C-alpha cells in the first residue's frame, strides 16, 4: 500500500517535473514552430545563474532574477541569431539552436568550471512535507509540483487571453501580411522566445538544486523533453501536460515491475536457460526497460497518431 501510494505520488511528481522542463519548449514550439534544441541549455543556464545569485543574495531572489536573466539571454539570442535565420525556414532555425547548445555548454564550463557546483536546496525547504507510514515526501518536491502547476496556469492564460498566439501563428506563414495589419511581429517573436527561455530558466533554478548542477545536466534532460512535447502533440499545452504525467507514471510504475518474459515462461513451466536463443531479450525485466519506454511511446505515437495525443497539427 505504502509502496503503491508512493509510486503513484512519485509518478505524478516526476510527471510534473517533466512538464516543468518542457513547458517552455512547448510554448516556443507551439507558437513559433521552432524546435528549440538549446532549450535544455537554457535550463542549465537557469541553474547556474541561480547558483551564483543564491550564493550572493539567497535563493528566493534568485528564483525571480535568474529566470529573468535567462529570458533576456533568450531574447538576445532571438534578436541577433534566430531572427537572421528565420527567413531561411524551420530547419536552419532548428540547426541554429542545435549549434547554440554546443556553445552554451562550453561557455558554462568556461565560467563555472567543469565539475559540479554546490547549489543546495534552501534550508527552509530542506525537509519533509509529510510522512506517510514510514516514507517522507520532501517539501522541495512539493514546491516543484506547485511551480509546475503555476507555469501551466500562466501559459494557459497567455495562450487564451492574449492575441500573441494568433499573431505568431499567422506570422509563421505570412509575416508580411501580419505586419501590414499593424502587428510588430519581430517584437512578439522576441518576447515569446525570451518567455520560453525564461520558463526553462525557472525550471533550471528549481531543478538545479533538486538534482545536480553540472555541465552535463543539459544533456541528460535533452531528449526526454522532446519526447514530452511530441507525444503530447505539437502545439498543445494540455497535450504536454498529459504526456508528462503519462510518461512520469509509466516510467515510475515500470520501475516497480520486475517481470520479464523469462519469468512469464517459467511461470508456464518452460525451461529457459542462458543458452536459449534470445535469452538476453527474455531476461530483460520491465524495470530495466523503464527509461526507454518514453522513446518507445514516442515512436508508437508518431506512427499511429502523428499529431500526438492532443495535437492540432502535424509537424
Amino acid at each position, binding site marked *: 500500500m505504502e509502496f503503491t501510494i508512493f509510486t503513484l505520488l512519485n509518478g505524478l511528481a516526476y510527471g510534473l517535473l517533466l512538464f516543468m522542463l518542457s513547458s517552455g519548449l512547448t510554448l516556443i514550439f507551439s507558437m513559433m514552430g521552432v*524546435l528549440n534544441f538549446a532549450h535544455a541549455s537554457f535550463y542549465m543556464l537557469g541553474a547556474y545563474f541561480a547558483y551564483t545569485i543564491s550564493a550572493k543574495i539567497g535563493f528566493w531572489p534568485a528564483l525571480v532574477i535568474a529566470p529573468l536573466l535567462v529570458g533576456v539571454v533568450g531574447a538576445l539570442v532571438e534578436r541577433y*541569431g534566430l531572427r*537572421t*535565420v528565420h527567413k*531561411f525556414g*524551420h*530547419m*536552419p532555425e*532548428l*540547426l*541554429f539552436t*542545435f*549549434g*547554440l*547548445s*554546443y*556553445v552554451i*555548454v*562550453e*561557455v558554462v*564550463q*568556461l*565560467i563555472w*568550471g*567543469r565539475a559540479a557546483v554546490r547549489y543546495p536546496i534552501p534550508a527552509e525547504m530542506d525537509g519533509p512535507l509529510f510522512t506517510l507510514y514510514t516514507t517522507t515526501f520532501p517539501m522541495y518536491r512539493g514546491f516543484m509540483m506547485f511551480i509546475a502547476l503555476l507555469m501551466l496556469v500562466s501559459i494557459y492564460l497567455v495562450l487564451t487571453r492574449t492575441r500573441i498566439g494568433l499573431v505568431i501563428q499567422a506570422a509563421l506563414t505570412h509575416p508580411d501580411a501580419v505586419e501590414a495589419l499593424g502587428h510588430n511581429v519581430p517584437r512578439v517573436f522576441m518576447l515569446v522566445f525570451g518567455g520560453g527561455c525564461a520558463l526553462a530558466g525557472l525550471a533550471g533554478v528549481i531543478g538545479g538544486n533538486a538534482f545536480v548542477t553540472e555541465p552535463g545536466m543539459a544533456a541528460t534532460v535533452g*531528449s526526454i523533453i*522532446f*519526447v514530452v512535447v*511530441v507525444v503530447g502533440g*505539437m502545439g498543445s499545452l494540455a497535450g504536454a501536460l498529459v504526456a508528462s504525467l503519462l510518461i512520469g507514471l509509466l516510467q515510475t510504475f515500470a520501475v516497480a515491475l520486475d517481470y520479464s518474459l523469462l519469468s512469464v515462461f517459467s511461470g508456464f513451466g518452460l525451461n529457459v536457460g542462458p543458452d536459449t536463443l534470445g*535469452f*538476453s*531479450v527474455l531476461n*530483460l525485466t520491465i524495470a*530495466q*526497460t523503464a*527509461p*526507454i519506454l518514453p*522513446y*518507445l511511446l*514516442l*515512436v508508437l505515437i*508518431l*506512427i499511429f497518431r*502523428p499529431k500526438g495525443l492532443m495535437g492540432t497539427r*502535424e*509537424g
Partner: protein
Amino acid sequence: MNTMQSSTTSATTSTMRFAPINLGRWLVWSVFVVLLVVAPLIFNKGAALSILCQMGTVMIFGLSYNMLLGQGGMLSFGHAVYSGLGAYFAIHAMNLASGGSLPIPVSLIPLVGGIFGAVFGVLFGYVTTKKSGTTFSMITLGIVELVFACSLMFPAFFGGEGGISTNRVMGQPVLGITYGPQIQVYYLIAFWLFISTVGMYAFTQTPLGRIINAVRDNPERVEFIGYNTQWVRYLTLILSAFFAGISGGLAAINFEIVTAENVSAVRSGAILLFTFIGGVGFFFGPLIGAVVGVFLTVLLSDFTKAWQLYLGVFFIIIVMYAPGGIASLLMMNVRLMVYKRFARVWPRLLSMVVATLIACVGAVMIIEMLYHLTLESANGTMMRLFGMQVDAAGIGGWLIALALVAVGLFLFVRARPAFRHTWDEANLEIEEMIRKEHA
C-alpha cells in the same frame, strides 16, 4: 498537327544541349581519383593517415546522409543507426571470417555493412518514412535512442559499452595485402569511397533521384503525377542506409572496434553538423563537410580544449551567414571565375578575408587565454599561442588580442561596402548574361 510539329522541332534543336559526354565532369572525377591516390603520400605520418581514413569513412556517411537531407529534405536525427548497425554486422562478419566459418575477404566486408545497413533501412525506414517533416525527424530521434538503449541492454551482440573488437589481419595475404599497415586500409577506404561516391552521384541522375527532389520541394504535387511519396522516401532511405552501412563497415575495419556510440544520437547529430557545414545544396558538400568536421573534432581537440566552442560557433556562423554551407560559398566564387568576374572581386574579397582573419586571431587568443585561465592556470599562466609565449594573466596578451579584434573588425567594416558593391555588381552582370544566353 500543331503539336506534332512543335515536338519534332524541339527535339532536333535540343539535341545540341543534350550532351551525354561531359568533359568537365570527367575532369572533376579524374581530379578526385588523383587526390585520393596522392593524399596519403603527402600526409604520410601514421596519425595523419588515420585521420585521412576517418575522413574517408565520414565522407561516405555524409554523402549518404545528404541523400536524405539535401536531396530529400528529410532531416534525420538517427542516421547513425544504419552506419552503426552496418558496422556491427561487418565486425561480426570479420570475426566469423577470421574464425574460418565465413569465407569472405576483408576487402568485401564493407559490402556486408552496406547490406545490413540496407536491411535495417527496410525495417526502420518503413516506420520512419511514413511521415515527413518534423514528424519524420522525431521518429528518427526516437529510433536512434531505442537502438542505442538496446545496444547496452544486449551485450551478446553489441558487446556492451566495450563494443566488439576484431583483428583485420587474417587469413593469407592476397597480393601482399594484409591490411596490417594503415596505408593499405587507406587505399581500401579510398576505393570504396570512390565507388560509393560514383554510386551516389549516379543516384542523383536517376528517375528516383530526381523524384526525391520533387518530393522535397512539394510532396503533395508528386502524388498527382503518379508517385507514392512514401515509397519514394522509403526507397531513398534504403539506398541511403546501404551507403551508410558501407561507411560503417569501413569504420569497423579502420578502428577494428565497434562500440555503442556508433549507433548513438550523438553520432547522428555529428553527421548532421558536418553535412550542413559542408553544404546540403551540392552533391559534393558533404565531402567538404567531412574534412572540416573531422578536422574540427579530431584534430582540433589535440590543439585546444576549446574545440567544442569553435565547432559550435563555426556551425552557427555557417547557419546564419552561409546556410548553403561551405560548398555554396565555393560555388559562388567559382561562378565568378567561370564568368570571368573573379579578377574584379578577388582583391576586395582578399581584404575581407584578411580582416576576418585578423579578428579571428584576436578572438582565438582571447578564447584560448580564457580557457587557460580557467583550466590550466594552476600550471602557470604562461602559454603558447601562435608560436609565441603569452602570459594569460598579464595585460599584454589581452591588449594585443583586443587590438587584433578591434583592428580586424574595423577593417572588416571598412572593406565591406566596397566588397558588397563589387560582389553584387558582378553577380548582377552574370545574371544579365545568363538571361541573355537563354533569351
